[in-house]
């Protein structure tokens, strides 16, 4: 059952080939047997999942429910889940039982999807390798000595290994797309404002966006359809209707203008990765698309810009973790200062502390203009680059990451090299555009992905292009050895 797509599972449930309870047990059983090799789940909610599956079976038997009813999914541990620990990968929230549901959780619950558990992630979504999690690193199912990418590494690994057909993710600088690429699955980060951030624990508020991860574009469409939509509880949520993603999947690609930014193919890109991207463009050309060379002249500024904006916002967002009301509190504080210093010092990991310090510095009196304000100005230039690009193309295509999955520990002590692995993805967050990663080949037995970047609220087109591409290729159908 785990090799079926979510769309096929939904059909199977309706035909009576299996029940949601059988399906759920099957995935829970796989998690129980296989996840010790991956560490992709922080919390498995087996009892709750089976109860939800039973409820889904009743709905299905009554002829009710929608396309996700009875389908299991893995939920990134950044989304609040009422009554279930929501750790955000941090010691700080190790004992935090969320008293409410995130909007995404609520919507998936209403759709009848069955939550298998909460997936591992970089602490507070800060990381590109899933090595910053308090719960230990996640391993890549294609090579367990390698990282799955981050920060949604648990979700990516779980889907790649067939532990869940669908998973949620969040993406602040590439945290859906990069792990999707490194694990050989499909992932979409929609336009900023498309998916509500209510109940999604904040890292960098102006960049964070929830999205969908699955093996295929079609399954991503299915999941994103349920997640997306206006939410009055999130003031940055877009008040516009959601397109019918499934209906748009099969549209032909004739005349599609695919922009290839010169800057994405320069130094630092593994030539074999360039080959993967080139081959993917060839496939799209075969489907009627045409290539257009474009320029995103300020792309090289995206990494330094991002590493001002994101830490600045995180330094403020994470101030609430002070040991006073919830979360980790140090033993026997002697006074308030001690309570703050030790609770935060012991509760946060090294990467989180590094970013809080960078952000605090960038916002400090005397530095604000030189760093934060300048970064906001550069951010506008990046927005402008993409705006100009979309005057002549329908989507932008490039690599998702410069290299395939690297080894555990390889970059963990070199934050700058680690940060550079996000170079192709973070401009998309700074501009608030939708981006997607699609499996497009292998390098030394490791998956490689291409990234599709769309114009604002053009998720339907991204999914459409990815789907047509996946009908012509089978990279997304490959499964890692040992997880068949």
């Amino acid at each position, binding site marked *: 059952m785990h090799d079926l797509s979510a769309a096929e599972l939904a059909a199977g449930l309706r035909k009576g080939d299996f029940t949601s309870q059988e399906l759920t047990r099957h995935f829970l059983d796989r998690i129980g047997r296989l996840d010790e090799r991956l560490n992709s789940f922080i919390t498995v909610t087996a009892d709750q999942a089976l109860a939800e599956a039973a409820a889904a079976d009743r709905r299905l038997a009554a002829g009710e429910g929608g396309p996700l009813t009875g389908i299991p999914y893995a939920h990134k541990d950044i*989304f609040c889940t009422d009554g279930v620990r929501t750790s955000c990968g941090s010691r700080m929230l190790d004992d935090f039982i969320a008293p409410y549901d995130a909007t995404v959780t609520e919507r998936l619950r209403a759709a009848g999807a069955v939550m298998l558990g909460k997936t591992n992630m970089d602490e507070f979504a800060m990381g590109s390798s899933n090595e910053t999690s308090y719960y230990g690193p996640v391993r890549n199912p294609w090579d367990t000595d390698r990282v799955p990418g981050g920060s949604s590494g648990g979700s990516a690994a779980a889907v790649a290994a067939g532990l869940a057909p669908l998973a949620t993710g969040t993406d602040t600088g590439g945290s859906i797309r990069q792990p999707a690429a490194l694990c050989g699955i499909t992932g979409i980060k929609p336009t900023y404002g498309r998916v509500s951030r209510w109940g999604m624990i*904040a890292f960098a508020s*102006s960049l964070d966006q929830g999205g969908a991860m699955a093996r295929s574009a079609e399954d991503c469409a299915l999941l994103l359809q349920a997640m997306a939509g206006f939410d009055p509880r999130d*003031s940055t949520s877009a008040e516009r209707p959601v397109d019918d993603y499934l209906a748009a999947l099969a549209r032909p690609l004739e005349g599609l203008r695919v922009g290839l930014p010169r800057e994405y193919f320069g130094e630092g890109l593994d030539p074999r990765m360039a080959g993967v991207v080139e081959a993917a463009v060839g496939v799209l050309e075969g489907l009627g698309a045409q290539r257009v060379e474009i320029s995103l002249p300020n792309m090289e500024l995206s990494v330094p810009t991002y590493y001002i904006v994101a830490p600045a916002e995180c330094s*403020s967002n994470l*101030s609430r973790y002070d040991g006073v009301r*919830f979360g980790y509190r140090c033993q026997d504080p002697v006074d*308030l200062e001690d309570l703050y210093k030790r609770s935060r010092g012991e509760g946060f990991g090294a990467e989180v502390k590094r970013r809080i310090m960078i952000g605090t510095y960038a916002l400090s*009196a005397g530095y*604000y203009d030189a760093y934060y304000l300048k970064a906001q100005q550069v951010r506008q230039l990046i927005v402008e680059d993409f705006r100009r690009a979309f005057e002549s193309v329908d989507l932008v295509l490039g690599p998702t990451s410069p290299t395939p999955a690297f080894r555990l520990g390889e970059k963990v002590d070199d934050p700058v090299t680690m940060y550079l692995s996000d170079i192709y993805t973070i401009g998309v967050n700074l501009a608030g555009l939708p981006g997607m990663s699609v499996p497009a080949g292998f390098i030394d037995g490791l998956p490689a992905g291409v990234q599709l970047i769309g114009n604002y609220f053009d998720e339907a087109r991204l999914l459409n292009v990815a789907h047509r591409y996946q009908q012509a290729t089978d990279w997304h159908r490959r499964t890692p050895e040992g997880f068949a």
Partner: protein
Amino acid sequence: MEWEAVIGLEIHAQLATRSKIFSAASTAYGAPPNTQACAVDLGLPGVLPVLNAEAVRMAVKFGLATHSNIARRSVFARKNYFYPDLPKGYQISQYELPIVYDGWLDIELDEGETKRIGITRAHLEEDAGKSLHDAFEDMTGIDLNRAGTPLLEIVSEPDLRSAREAVAYMKKLHALVRYLEICDGNMQEGSFRCDANVSVRRRGEHRFGTRTEIKNVNSFRFVERAINYEIERQIDILESGGAVVQETRLYDSARDETRSMRTKEEANDYRYFPEPDLLPLVLDDAWIEEVGQTLPELPDAKKARFVDDYGLSPYDAGVLTATRELADYYEAVVAACGGTAKLAANWVMGELSGALNKAGLEIGASPVTAEALGGLLRRIEDNTISGKIAKQVFEAMWAGEGDADQIIDQRGLRQITDPAAIEAMIREVMEANPKQVEQYRAGQEKLFGFFVGQVMKASRGKANPAQVNAALKQLLAGD
């Protein structure tokens, strides 16, 4: 050497919305600790603020009433600092682009002059919770009921030159926000609080001296005392050759002094930056105009009308329009008594205000309603009772013995105006005092007062004094 004080006030007015500025929790005062704090107020992971439209409407009302500019686009910002009663570790406020800016307010000085005080800006922000340091031994309690309550921070230009001007400005603002019904003005509950920036300089000097900020003073009297203390303190320092340190000071009302709280060096770096969880607040002209149409008559306009329509002195009109409730009460009395507005003014400012002060009551809690007081004044107007008797009746009304007519009847206080009855009383008095009559008739006219007194006494105060006078004169003349 003559010194001049330079004062600017920052006033925090708690906006009278039913729910908080960024959450749906109630803002009602006095609930048990932490029963009115929802997930947003607690700053739980994942929560987001949503701006309360009513708070925006109130801020705009204030801006329009103070001749200010209303920003078509204003921006919320985060003010970052750690404190246990600040759940998120930052306060959502407005920084570079406030909703209201560049306005003014006229205040009345003692000499009857007015002075225009500039309003630099007024911005929306959320209040913090409360730290309760006395409730638990060796521990501090945190009550987050107040966290997220909407505040309008109103910043004046440094246009004030004395503690009295500062208090006049503060009182004017206090009246205004209550007129606008955007703040209940309850200073004991902290709904209207003041920070004062004070510096001194030699008269004629144009540059400002180093200022200190006195935090959180919550009564008019304390503001005046704190500022005066601070002015004296700074002058003493400067005159003895020292320098004022820029710092934040606290006013201790028990000792009547200000004390250093933290110096500039110890001040927090708030690391303001635009609040990414909220979009810029954009207002259009039509909406602002719609809000403008809901403005009530404002204190200055009302005062002018009282002078014009009721023929009151500017002073009386000022007293009667000090609060909207008092002005409304006064107008209801005038309507009910149908008589002279001046008589009504005298009674409202005299007997009624005196009784309210004595009992420590606000006008809204007066046991004598405007209609009842009007009924009493009507009986003075139509000569049913004299002004002196009316005071007795008022006391009985205050004590809840009924309306004026009931009391007049029950106590038999109706004025005696029957000429025959009055003549009979006079004759009785004359018969009882033949010697005085003789002396009066012999030219001792100052005895007239004695006879008036005797007649009034005989009538137990009820005889119409004018009639008594006229009749006495006639009868004593010995016709």
